[in-house]
């Protein structure tokens, strides 16, 4: 059974590598946030899998739970950024030289 868990752990790592592509290359900042969120979810699962491999899951569930919570906070925090800065491009940063992006709805 242990080998199966290790194998699935490695497979999850490979999926993370693919999700990392979105995190790193975007193209937009929100794609990056999405990629990070996906990595976060996979990490939660992987933590429990590692716990199962160590056969001490009782010690790992707390970490996984804390992890899920903090991942949630990070995602909410990142998305709330756009309640204040309505532009996904870095060039039009802040509001000092704010120009409405294409298709902006709120103006």
């Amino acid at each position, binding site marked *: 059974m242990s080998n199966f868990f290790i194998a699935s752990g490695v497979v999850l790592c490979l999926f993370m590598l693919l999700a990392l592509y979105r995190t790193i290359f975007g193209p937009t900042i929100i794609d990056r946030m999405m*990629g990070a969120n996906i990595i976060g979810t996979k990490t939660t699962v992987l933590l429990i899998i590692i716990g199962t491999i160590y056969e001490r899951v009782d010690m790992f569930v707390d970490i996984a739970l804390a992890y899920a919570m903090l991942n949630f906070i990070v995602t909410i925090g990142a998305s709330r950024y756009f309640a204040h800065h309505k532009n996904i491009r870095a060039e039009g940063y802040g509001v000092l030289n704010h120009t409405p992006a294409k298709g902006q709805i709120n103006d």
Partner: protein
Amino acid sequence: MIWQIDIMILTLIVICGLFAISVKDLLGAAVVFGAYSFLMCLLWTEMGAVDVAFTEAAVGAGVSTVLFFAAVHRSSRQVKARVSGAMLYKGLGLLASGLMGGVLFYASTDFPDWADPASPASSHLSPHFITQTIAETSVPNIVTSVLADYRGFDTMFETAVVLTAGLAVLIILRLGGCRTAGPIREKNAAIQAAYKDSIIRFVTRMVVPFMQLFALYVVAHGHHSPGGGFQGGVILGASFILLAISYDLKMALNRINEKAALLLANTGVLIYGGIGFLCLLLGANFLDYSILHRILPATDEIAARSHAMLGVEIGVALTVMVIVMIIYNNIVSNGSYEKGL
């Protein structure tokens, strides 16, 4: 250790680290850095360092990423290359890091193999901690017993470092003369936000009590499972950050105002230092908890150590919780305490 996962994650970490400093958008860099911390957390668990992983999950992946968002929110996202002298700085950086890398690789040839049970690090001091912790402190979590007792003095100063950081942020931003909220334009934001964020707010209302309860469990159960004062304190602080993010800063500040925060933070470290000083007054050395059995009812020397560690952890949790809030509140509002993320 699980070497298959170890190799995978280390490779991912290097990729993440490389791009965290090369992405041309600060918010993006912060997100990639967050992902980097996620992976770090996995690396620690895989090597069996559960307490480190817990701290990394709470501090590295959670709070510090949010702090980056807050700082970018208050400043700008733009990254510009140097106009002149870029090559000089690049050359300098490459030279210095190449030199350091060379030295470190050179040293690594002499290291004992990774995960070798016979290496000096694993055979000199640590066997004592592993075999004696139950007998000497009755705490099964060896990390907690070493952290709060054998090396409790380090931990006291570590708490003092946290407090110092909080006070430093306070003195730099809050009292730093500039009280304007920074370059943010708010357009009838309150009405819009209340309407838009009803889902997030609803979920937050459900999650926050659960989180705080969990944090208290982490503090109290640190003797038997990973966790303890720092981790619990950070999660408590993070729950207030979640409130501040999904409602607004005022909401979190109404819970714990500025003066109370300062008092609580100092109380936390004073609990720690006070327990140590109590030992000194009772005639033992500083932080020698075993003497406390004289004043704690129905304990022997070993149980006194265990109980004192719990007290110490509570002090740590108090300080860390408040300081995490202070740092976040100041950075997100540029010291004005007006508008948050």
